[in-house]
């Protein structure tokens, strides 16, 4: 015998509650990860990949020169001294380039920092490959000490030809509490 619900409105209700639950889950399961994927793919906000680039480069394009500007910003409440060693360098697409950012913790206690990269023009983000970067990890620093933080990158040869200057900005955040609070960081 087929069980028929006495009140068809209850069926409708159950289905609609299902829709509401699915939409709530949709925010976390689809929207958030999808946004991250789109950011990576389209360079929204000039975001670059958070992982080291490992692909092999075909060669260096000596005929082209790209100006790379480095910018360092402290977010509110971050007392570190933080600056690029050189503010501007010229590079060839395909070549491996090294530079260094300087950081100093002026406070007596140890702190942890996280640097967030952002590339302008944002279109260039997907062609800006970092093989080594201090932004991949949180940076702990003892009180009253300093550090030279390395950055190694390659500008892709497929970089659109109209792009001649790329600005790489790092904003440094104090994440000491976040880390010491031992709470999961997404």
């Amino acid at each position, binding site marked *: 015998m087929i069980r028929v619900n006495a009140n068809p409105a209850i069926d409708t209700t159950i289905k609609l509650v299902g829709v509401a639950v699915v939409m709530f889950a949709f925010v976390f399961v689809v929207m958030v990860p999808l946004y991250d994927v789109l950011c990576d793919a389209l360079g929204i*906000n*000039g*975001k670059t990949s958070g992982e080291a680039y490992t692909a092999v480069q075909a060669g260096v394009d000596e005929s082209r020169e790209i100006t790379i*500007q480095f*910018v360092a*910003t*402290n*977010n*509110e409440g971050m*007392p570190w001294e933080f600056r690029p060693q*050189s*503010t*501007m360098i010229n590079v060839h697409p395909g070549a491996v380039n090294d530079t260094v950012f300087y950081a100093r913790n*002026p*406070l*007596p206690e140890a702190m942890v920092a996280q640097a*967030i990269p*952002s*590339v*302008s*023009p*944002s279109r260039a983000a997907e062609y800006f490959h970092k093989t080594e970067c201090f932004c991949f990890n949180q940076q702990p620093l003892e009180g*009253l000490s300093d550090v030279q933080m390395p950055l190694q990158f390659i500008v892709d040869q497929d970089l659109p030809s*109209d*792009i*001649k*200057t790329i*600005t790489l*900005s790092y*904003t440094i*955040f104090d994440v000491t509490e976040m880390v010491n609070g031992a709470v999961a960081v997404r």
Partner: protein
Amino acid sequence: MWFEAKRLLKLALGPVLMLTSAAAMAAGTEVSQVNMSPGVTEVGQQIYDLHMIILGICTIIGIGVFGVMFYSIIYHRKSRGFTPATFHESTKVEILWTVVPFIILIGMAVPATSTLVALYDVEDAELDVLITGYQWKWKYEYLDESGENVSFFSNLRTPQSEIYNAEEKGEHYLLEVDEPLVLPVDTKVRLLVTANDVLHSWWVPQLAVKKDAIPGFINETWTKATEPGIYRGQCAELCGKDHGFMPIVVNVVSKEEYAQWLDTKQAEAAEIKELMAKTFTLDEQMERGKAVYTQSCLACHGANGEGGVGTAIAGSPIATGELAGHLDVGINGVPGTAMQAFGGQLNDVDMAAVITYQRNAFNNNMGDLVQPIDVYNHKKGQ
């Protein structure tokens, strides 16, 4: 009841009539701007044209639609004995009023697309400026190859006394800053926009630039002013209490003047570096400190340190207490109050001078002499 309603109507309409006449009188002396300004950039002109085209199209459609409606309202009244027609649904008409608007929209989309493309073309800039939004001020940094970036903060200059109606408001009330952004004319400038704390948005209508400032990320846009002049704007994204009090002033000057200005700024920066190593006398510090005080402290703490929006400095427990505590307040501010952290705004030379001034002026007479190196050390050791 009708009488009552009539009386109410009169009462309600009174202020409107008064107002229109008052507005007309006001307009006699100065006409308020009612439309967008094309500004002083090519893109601004394009945006203005686009705005006018679409406003025009909307007006024409509006006249048509409302014309039909008012014709109906006037002639198809029951009180005129009009018998209602019974027609409804006409596929022909319905297809027509779907397709025609669609075609008009395509007509609008074409110029809109080309303007947007122009707006997004940040390449080939001759100058790069990094703009950082702070609660509640702007910082400008000229990115320079030499590594000696010129950078400074730009604060609201309107005194609290004008805002709180104690004094007559000046001509550029709320749209004036202590140090404007200076840009050369006819030069494509790339603007990199970011924020230090919450979202802000850098908007100068005359330059046709509005870009959100997002903490952690940089946004890019550009401008190319074709006429020298002073252009004013404001933060456009709600950023907390003083969102309405962080104006933007851009001073567009000739290329020569710009070069001169940049030299001066660079010389100033070099001078500060030199001064950092120097030891000042009390008189020198008092003189410099007074100037700094007038510019940075006076608005809130009063000309004689008597207080106002801020607490009194004359006889204050901070200015007459431990030097370290005084430096701390000056450098880091007092969270939760209007006292900002000046550590990032004033250089160490000016900070040392103004602290010296505050501890000795207004009958505080502490006799302390603060040197730039003291401020530097305090910052390092804090």
